[in-house]
Structures are given as structure tokens and as C-alpha cells.
């Protein structure tokens, strides 16, 4: 049943959500591209950033945000150095790697619970962005504009690094064929570290933007974000960054639209509807909606 809907409002809200998931999807997709590793502990980076924001509330905002970026990038590098690199050295299969990222995610959540408690912390860093201005009867919150602009800028910057710099060329080479690129002189570990740094910066940006609308930080905050973004990456097609970004955006957009359009009695089934669409997309286009048309089998995990 459809409720009375202000379509403009629904679309505006959905775009903001889509932009956020698009960013997360790129963060996950970048590391996947280089390492063929689905990092399920990515959401815990976002949670870590949110905790930094919560605990530095009242500090000057730029410092608080810089600390957030620094902490998240450090944690991203720590994940690689402490967990993922030793695993690759040990010759783990992709399935083992995937479960290992679950274990890392589980471990980080347990640490957050032990250190910060289950009750949750409130982030107020950019709370003022929740105020809205009205265009044509549609309330547009400032955070929507900020999210979309930040998203576009960061995606543009990531694309620029990948396309215009030599180290970006190395990342793309490694993503295309890791072994051959190493033979041709690409420094594997540097490329891997850099992609973790970029994905960390993206995660920190998501921490800052996400907590404006959802200020409560809890140990498991990152899990649903990771799940939806991961779904977006696979639905969009994981062989290229822009298709992953579009997939993340699409999942956020569809979710946001449906949650405004469906009545409250049927909207409890919204996750089921979205997951159902995901299955349909995967059956029709296993390589993703925006993936390559060639029928190359993506057999990676």
C-alpha cells in the first residue's frame, strides 16, 4: 500500500543515503580490486572514526575531524599489517580470508564493547548541518548537500589519484593482474598500503557524514553499513570502481525511496524486498548491473 508521498522529499533523502553508501562501496571496492579481499571489518573502521568524534566532542571541529581521519587510517593499516598480510603469507584460501575478516570484525566489536560500553556515545560534531532550508515544499537538510558534494569530491580525488599519478597506475596494474604487475616492478606492498590508506580516508569521511543523521555510536554500528555497501558492490559489479560506487548508490537510493514510499505496516518488510531485488539482479547479471557485458565468470571468493 502506498502512503501519501512527497516525492521530492523522498528523492532528496534517498540521494543522501545513496551518496553515503556509494562512498563505502568505493572503500570496499578499492581494496577488493587490488587484493581480491572482501574486508568485512570495513564497517569497524567507520565505527572507530565515530568513536573518535564522540570522544573529541567540544574540541575544535577541524582537529576532531583530523584526529578521526588519522585514527581510521592507522586502524586500516593495522588491519592489513597485523591480520591480512600474515594471512596472505600463510597462503590462506579466499574463503579463509573472508572468514578471517569476520573474525577481525568480531574482535574489534568486542574491543569497542569492552572499552566504550554498550550504551552508546553521542556525536555532535556537525550537528548543525541537520538544519534545513525549503525549496518548493521540499525540506533539504544541509547535510544532504554536504554529503553529496563531499562524496563527489572524494570520488573525483580517488579517480584522479588512480588515473593521473604513477602510483595510481601501479594500483590499477595490480588490480588487473597482481602477479604480472609485480614482475614488471610494481612494489606490491606499497600499492596495497596505499589502497588501505585511501579506503581509510573514505571510511573516516563516512564516519563524519553518517553521524550527523545518526549520532548514536554503538559497537555494532558499522555492521549494517558494511552489509548494505557490500551488497551494493556486488550488485553494481566489483570489477571496476565506478560500477561499485554506482551499485552502492543504487542500493542506498532504492532503500531510501522505499522507506519513504511504503506505509508503516509494510515497511517492516523493506529489507526483505531489497534483498529479494538483490537476488534477482545476481541471477540475471552475476557480474553486476554495471559490470562487463562479457560473460567472464567472476570466480574470486
Amino acid at each position, binding site marked *: 500500500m502506498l502512503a501519501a508521498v512527497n516525492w521530492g522529499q523522498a528523492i532528496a533523502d534517498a540521494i543522501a543515503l545513496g551518496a553515503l553508501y556509494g562512498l563505502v562501496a568505493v572503500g570496499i571496492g578499492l581494496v577488493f580490486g587490488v587484493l581480491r579481499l*572482501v574486508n568485512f571489518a570495513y564497517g569497524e573502521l567507520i565505527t572507530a572514526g565515530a568513536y573518535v568524534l564522540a570522544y573529541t566532542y567540544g574540541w575544535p571541529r577541524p582537529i576532531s575531524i583530523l584526529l578521526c581521519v588519522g585514527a581510521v587510517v592507522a586502524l586500516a593499516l593495522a588491519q592489513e599489517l597485523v591480520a591480512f598480510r600474515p594471512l596472505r603469507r600463510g597462503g590462506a584460501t579466499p574463503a579463509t580470508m573472508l572468514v578471517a575478516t569476520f573474525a577481525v570484525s568480531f574482535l574489534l566489536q568486542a574491543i569497542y564493547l569492552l572499552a566504550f560500553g554498550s550504551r552508546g556515545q553521542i556525536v555532535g560534531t556537525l550537528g548543525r548541518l541537520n538544519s534545513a532550508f525549503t525549496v518548493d515544499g521540499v525540506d533539504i537538510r544541509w547535510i544532504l548537500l554536504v554529503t553529496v558534494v563531499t562524496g563527489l569530491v572524494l570520488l573525483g580525488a580517488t579517480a584522479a589519484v588512480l588515473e593521473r599519478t604513477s602510483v595510481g597506475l601501479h594500483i590499477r596494474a595490480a588490480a588487473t593482474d597482481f602477479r604480472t604487475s609485480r614482475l614488471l616492478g610494481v612494489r606490491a606492498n606499497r600499492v596495497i598500503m596505499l589502497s588501505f590508506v585511501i579506503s581509510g580516508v573514505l571510511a573516516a569521511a563516512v564516519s563524519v557524514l553518517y553521524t550527523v543523521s545518526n549520532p548514536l555510536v554503538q559497537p555494532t554500528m558499522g555492521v549494517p553499513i558494511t552489509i548494505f555497501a557490500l551488497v551494493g558492490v556486488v550488485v553494481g559489479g566489483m570489477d571496476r570502481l565506478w560500477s561499485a560506487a554506482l551499485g552502492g548508490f543504487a542500493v542506498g537510493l532504492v532503500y531510501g525511496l522505499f522507506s519513504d514510499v511504503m506505509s508503516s505496516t509494510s515497511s517492516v518488510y523493506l529489507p526483505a524486498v531489497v534483498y529479494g531485488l538483490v537476488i534477482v539482479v545476481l541471477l540475471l547479471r552475476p557480474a553486476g548491473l554495471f559490470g562487463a557485458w562479457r560473460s567472464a565468470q567472476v570466480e574470486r571468493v
Partner: protein
Amino acid sequence: MRRVLELAGPIALVAATAAIASGISSAHQLEFETALVMVAIVVALYVFVGNSGVISFGHASFVAAGAYLAGLVTLDPETKNFTTPGLFHVLLHAQIGLVPSLALAAAVGAAYAIVVGLPLMRLSGLPAGIATFAVLGITYDVLSYWGKIGPGVQTLSGVPEASSWSIAAGVVIVIVAAYAYQRSRFGRMLRATREDPAAARASGISIYRQRLLAFALSGALAGLAGGLYVHQLGIITPELFYLDLTFVTLAMLVFGGMGSLWGAVVGALAISALNSFLGDAENTVDVGFHLTLPNGTRLVTVGAVMALVLILKPSGLTGGREFGRWRR
């Protein structure tokens, strides 16, 4: 001789656990029985994941289907009239015994797995993983809100509980079925597709059909395990069958070694034991001296141990070998 050992090892472990469970205080009994149920769930998961090499995040759905059905059909109709009057007519008025309810649980697990598997077994790799995850998400969402098939987000209690030995008997059935499958030609064909899909296809094996068969059997065993779970806990609630169960059972499987039945059993028991011990230690345990750990150390330690074992020994504790086959 070796063949006997391969099956005897896991069964002996299960019997030992059951023997301890039936002979100790009720607080600890619960922990040992939960460990037994975990063995059943992980072995069910192993039948598909271990033999096919494809990860499934959807098995908690089949466990849930079995648990809900077995729980609802054994509950007293008068209680159900009072607590969940919105149930389907059949579910509301049925009341059957323990064994038939477990048979029903296995049947509904198999049926659900076949419905899901018919389209999904065409996928492999990450798309397969995400699609099975989507199945889990749908199951959880529907179980949480559809009043005709369960208590919704509420917890329904009062499901008749089974003894430690009857739970152990159910677990042994799951293990024997898993072993019989892996020794059969179907199990061998599926493992061939895991090792080399192209060569298996060239030998005339249909990957789709073999995976679907394993998925259905695995779903049946998971449904049965769900039935055991509900008769062990005595309660029904959707939260039991979602992310936590999915990740813990997958981690147990990989921890023990996903290449063997022995690995599945050892992984489930080892993580359960560690979890229970640390849980007790948070309320002081006597290990020669009185050990008291601060609250929250349990989860951190379990997470750290799982991550460490995966890093140091990616093929799992057993290295994917069966019981009695220690040499490569």
C-alpha cells in the same frame, strides 16, 4: 579400520560431551548441550561448504525453519492460543511428539534449501555468497514480523526440552549422514568440482546438480539441527538465527578446518569450550586458584583466538584431515 576411525572419532567426542552434560549441574549442562547443537549445525554447514568450497551465509535460515516448525508443533495448543493466536490454523492446533517434530524440521529444512538452491546454485564465488546472505536477510526480516508463522520479534517460551542423550542422538544422526554423503559417489563428485571445476565438468559431472544435492542434504541436516536447538533452549525468537549464529558457525568450521568432518566437529567443540570457560571465568572459576576475568574479556579473547588461529594455521586446527589420518 581407518574408515571406522574416521566416523568413530567424531562420535566418541559427541558421546563424551553428552556424558558430561548428563552428569553435571544444570547451569553447565546448558553449555554442554549448546556445544552439541553447535556440532550439528557446523557439520550440516560442512556438508555443503566443506565439500563444494562455496561459502554459504544462508544456513542459519534453514536452522531457523527447522527450529520454528519443530518448536511450534510441539507447543501446547492452549499456550499458543494465549501467546500467539495469529498463527496459521495448522500450527496453532497441532501438537506432536519430539521425534516426529524433528523429522518435520529436517523436511522443512530440505524443502527450503531446494527452493533457494534451484535458482542460487547457478552462482559461484562472491555472488553466491551475497545471494545466500540475502536469503538470510529475508528470512530474518519475515520471521521478525510475520505473526502467522511465529511470535514475531517476541520470544516464545515453553517448548518441551529434550534430554542431553536425545540431543546427542540427533547429533550422531547428522554426523553419520554427513559421513555417508562424503563417502558416496555424489560426495566425491562434488569434491572433484571443488578441486578443479573444469576437469570435473570434462568428466561429465554437472556442478549445478551436485551442488544442489549437497545443498538440499545440508539444508535437511541444518533443519534437524534447528529442531535440536529449539528443544534444547526451549524458546523461539528470530534473533537466535541471524548474524551471530551465521558468523560463529562459519568461524567454527574454518577454525577446525573446513576440509574435513573431523575439523567441523573439533572446531565447534573447541570454540564452544573456550566460550563457556571464559564466560564462567567472568564470574570467577576455580582452576587451582580463583580466576576472575573482567566482563567483556570473553568476546575479545574468542575473537582474538579465532583471528590468531586463522593467521597462524589457515587450514584450521585439523588441517582438513579426518580423524586417524595424521600423515599427509
